[in-house]
């Protein structure tokens, strides 16, 4: 739920509650005031009766009146307390009962006690109240609507800087060199938020850059000692007399240095892809390129008795040649290396996708893990960065890279978009 909706809901509920309570109080107050006024009228009427009785020593004649009825009822008892009360008023003209107010009092005429009942119709009061009620209701509705609209527009405008900051955070990408763009606002809170977010993104990016710089430098710095070790091994191999055991050990050391070198190169390449340092592109026909690669690998394929079935449609891509090489070397290399003897590799290429599938272990690889850095099958001697590199390259060109396992085939698929 959006903040504004939550806010509107609460403010709406509170407003309605307050209005209902106020309306009630309002109604009671008006009703009380008006009743008081009616009661005063009744008192005036009573006084007139008293004055007439005093003067004429007789009950006044009762006239029909629109809103007033007076009745004199002979009473047996003297002690009739003067009291106000609600009563029904029968309106003969309209022929209907109306709410009314009655004053009960007494008067003595010639030693006889009469109970006076003066009833006044409250219908006009009711009308008034109803009138006031509807006006109030109308005002409330208009007010609420206005409130809602103003809230919406105003709040939306007020929150605009916030949404812009949010957008900046969403678009924030560590690999990008540019951080979060500052947003201007005269509201203190947003300004603070903006300053902090910008500062934070700057810090994070600095840290990330220095970390990456460290990794890259470390990898670079390792290259020279590796070169020394490698060259010393090359030199050592030239020493004439040696036992087979010694040769085997040298061979193993050599091999291990080779792995270290590949690992290092992959790390460097990864960081360069992330830093977008491989920007040169050219248009390459992928079908042709794959054919060349297969040619290059033909001895490997023949050695393992792996059959190739391919369906390559022309597919020009604009890509960095070195990266494409790395990508296909890894994909095809994996398809060969992790294949079974006399297995099969299928390559399907069209404008939309490249799918390389191969026979191999009869269980699916873990889809998530397979793309993780340094993940590799236990028997693999690879760096564990091969597929990470492929993924990273695909990401940098906006291709989708995925793995699936279907009918005994490991499918690696690149979707161009």
């Amino acid at each position, binding site marked *: 739920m959006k903040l504004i909706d939550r806010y509107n809901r609460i403010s709406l509920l509170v407003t309605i509650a307050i209005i209902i309570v106020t309306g009630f109080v309002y109604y009671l107050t008006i009703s009380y005031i008006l009743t008081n006024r009616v009661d005063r009228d009744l008192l005036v009427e009573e006084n007139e009766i008293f004055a007439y009785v005093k003067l004429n020593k007789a009950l006044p004649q009762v006239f029909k009146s629109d809103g007033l009825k007076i009745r004199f009822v002979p009473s047996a008892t003297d002690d009739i307390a003067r009291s106000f009360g609600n009563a029904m008023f029968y309106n003969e003209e309209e022929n209907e009962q109306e709410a009314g107010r009655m004053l009960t009092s007494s008067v003595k005429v010639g030693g006889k006690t009469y109970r006076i009942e003066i009833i006044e119709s409250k219908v006009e009061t009711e009308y008034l109240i109803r009138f006031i009620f509807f006006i109030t209701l109308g005002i409330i509705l208009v007010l609420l609507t206005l409130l809602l609209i103003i809230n919406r527009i105003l709040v939306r405008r007020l929150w605009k800087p916030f949404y812009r900051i949010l957008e900046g955070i969403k678009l924030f990408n560590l690999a990008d060199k540019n951080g979060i763009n500052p947003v201007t606002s005269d509201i203190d809170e947003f300004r603070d938020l903006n300053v902090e977010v910008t500062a934070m993104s700057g810090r994070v990016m600095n840290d990330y850059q220095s970390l990456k710089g460290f990794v890259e430098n470390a990898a*670079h*710095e390792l*290259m*020279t000692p*590796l*070169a*020394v*070790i*490698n*060259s*010393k*091994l*090359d*030199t050592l*191999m*030239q020493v004439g007399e*040696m*036992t*087979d055991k*010694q*040769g*085997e050990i*040298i*061979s193993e050391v*050599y*091999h291990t*240095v*080779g*792995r270290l*070198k*590949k690992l290092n*190169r992959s790390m*460097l*390449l990864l960081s*360069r892809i992330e830093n977008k*340092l*491989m920007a*040169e592109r050219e248009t390459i026909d992928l079908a042709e390129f794959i054919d060349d690669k297969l040619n*290059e*690998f033909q*001895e*490997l394929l023949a*050695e393992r008795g792996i059959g190739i079935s391919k369906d390559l449609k022309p597919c020009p891509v604009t890509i960095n040649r*070195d990266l494409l*090489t*790395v990508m296909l*070397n*890894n994909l095809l*290399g994996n398809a*060969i*290396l992790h294949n079974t003897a006399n297995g099969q590799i299928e390559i399907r290429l069209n404008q939309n996708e490249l799918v390389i599938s191969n026979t191999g272990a009869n269980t699916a690889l873990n889809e998530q893990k397979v793309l993780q850095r340094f993940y590799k099958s236990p028997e*693999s*001697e*690879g*760096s564990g960065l*091969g597929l990470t590199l492929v993924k990273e390259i695909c990401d940098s060109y906006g291709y989708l890279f995925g793995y699936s396992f279907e009918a005994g085939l490991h499918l690696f698929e690149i979707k161009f978009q």
Partner: protein
Amino acid sequence: MMSFETIVKVLVIEDEPGLRDSIRDYFTEGGNICETAHDYESALQKINLYRYDCILLDITLPNGNGLDILETLKANHHPDGVLIISAKNSLDDRLHGLDLGADDYLTKPFHLSELKARVMAIVRRKSFNGNREIIFNEITVDLLAKQVSVNETPVKLTKKEYALLLYFIANKGKVISKNAIAEHLWGDEIDISDNFDFIYSHIKNLRKKLIDAGAGDYIQSTYGMGYKFGEH
């Protein structure tokens, strides 16, 4: 039989002593001359005084940039071949170096056999007498036609076998590791070259083809580490 020998004069400009000495040791044999320079100034001195068939140039040097040395060379129209050796596998450096007129670029770490093969290729390209042929005893390699013949009899080699033979001849008398061979033939990005069985069959095929054509048995396995090409 006489083997055709090219005597090469090489200058190694490299500040890392371990690497410099290894290269010198590897290159100094059979009349080849290998001089060394360890920093910018001594390198400038040498290139101003002497000419070399090939200069191995490290880009990051104490007190200076190797690319400046390359620029000095080119500004003075010296014909020396230049092979850049750098720890930075950056395309910018590579392109920049090649733009400035370097003949090749090799990233550290490398195999000395690969370095030698590259240097020999540069020297061959640079040589004035149009060295289109490499002759090793009875084996003749026609570089233009990419043809190999033994005692004038053509031998049909696959692309890879041909590359392998050139590699062997460039490093004749040296033990070449299986890694180096695999990387030379298939590149170094793929883990697949760790599997060396197929190298063995390649070498076996090459050896068989050469022997069948009447050449001597020049390829031998050494202590399981690698292979050596040359007379016993």
